[in-house]
């Protein structure tokens, strides 16, 4: 009888302990979720420092939580702390090597860190598995352009425009890359497509002005720079347009 009583007591202790552990886990996860929820809300409202506090608190409770680390990496990027963001994205990839969003974002962070070689490797890696990834083509184009390979960049932007013809930024970037390689006619055609999609695209008018100027059509160039000045929201671009118009003096 005594033995049975001891066995029942031991079982009760074991069950009670495991129940307590489960309850503790449950409540800890609830707190993690709460921190993450607040963090994401703050992130989307632009309070990146507030969001960081929440993600840090969540990571203290659950240091191996991949999603929390990923969210902290995004937040660090938004705060301009690119080295720290890259470290977190890499940690995510160590934990889960096929976590593609972290891989992609590491490539974007490499661009911010001027590590164009690293970025190109990542986007090439994504494209080797998914050759129709529009964003990988576009970002590979950015890496190529920023590392001084306008000719290579033009090819990647061309693919991006073929995959997503409504992507006005890709048309503009392709035009810029063509301009840099000296293909003024090609650049002009691409700008035509960009302006068809967005008729108030100041940068496109500006680049067209530069093309017209190089083609010797000062009157048309002036008109394009005037359109750029009219549509530009950026005061620096407006000011540069005004200075160029004054210099052309048609």
């Amino acid at each position: 009888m005594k033995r049975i009583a001891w066995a029942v007591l031991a079982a009760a202790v074991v069950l009670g302990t495991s129940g307590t552990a489960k309850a503790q886990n449950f409540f800890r996860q609830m707190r993690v979720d709460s921190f993450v929820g607040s963090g994401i809300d703050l992130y989307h409202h632009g309070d990146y420092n507030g969001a960081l506090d929440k993600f840090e608190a969540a990571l203290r409770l659950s240091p191996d939580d991949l999603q929390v680390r990923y969210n902290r990496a995004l937040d660090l990027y938004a705060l301009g702390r690119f080295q720290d963001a890259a470290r977190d994205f890499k940690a995510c990839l160590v934990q889960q090597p096929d976590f593609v969003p972290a891989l992609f974002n590491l490539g974007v962070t490499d661009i911010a860190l001027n590590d164009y070689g690293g970025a190109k490797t990542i986007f090439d890696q994504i494209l080797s598995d998914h050759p129709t990834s529009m964003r990988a083509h576009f970002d590979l184009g950015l890496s190529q352009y920023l590392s001084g390979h306008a000719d290579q960049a033009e090819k990647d932007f061309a693919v991006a425009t073929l995959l997503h013809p409504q992507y006005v930024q890709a048309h503009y970037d392709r035009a810029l890359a063509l301009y840099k390689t000296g293909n003024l006619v090609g650049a002009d055609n691409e700008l035509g497509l960009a302006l068809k999609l967005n008729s108030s695209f100041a940068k496109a008018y500006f680049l067209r002005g530069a093309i017209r100027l190089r083609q010797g059509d000062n009157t048309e160039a002036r008109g394009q720079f005037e359109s750029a000045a009219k549509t530009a929201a950026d005061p620096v671009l407006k000011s540069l347009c005004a200075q160029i118009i004054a210099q052309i003096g048609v």
Partner: protein
Amino acid sequence: MPMHFRRILTTAAVSTAVLGGVLFNLSSGSNKSGDPAFAATTPSKNVLDLIDRALSGPAGIEDEGSYNLIDPIGPGASTSVSAADEVYASTLIVGKYTPWQAYRDPFAAAPGTTPPPGPYTPPGPPRRRGGSK
């Protein structure tokens, strides 16, 4: 040297000079009208500097703007699967994220629908007795 011979020489020299000048003018004129590159007045260095400054600055390369990163994942936001889809997509997919809802009320109506009628309905405005008069 006889007089008439000297005249012939002078006339020939003048004619050669005039003809040369005319031909030179014609050839440069044809270049100007035929090739726009010749018609162009080369933009001044100042203008080219301003253009280069703009193209490496405010008129420079375009990125995805606020969508350059694949955004947060987790319950209530984008799932890791849809985030991966966003990377692989052959078109631009952005802004699919929903607001975080960690503790959704299981009895709450789904977004965009009206709640089903229950046993309790909130009191409406007080009704006037005695008809419409």
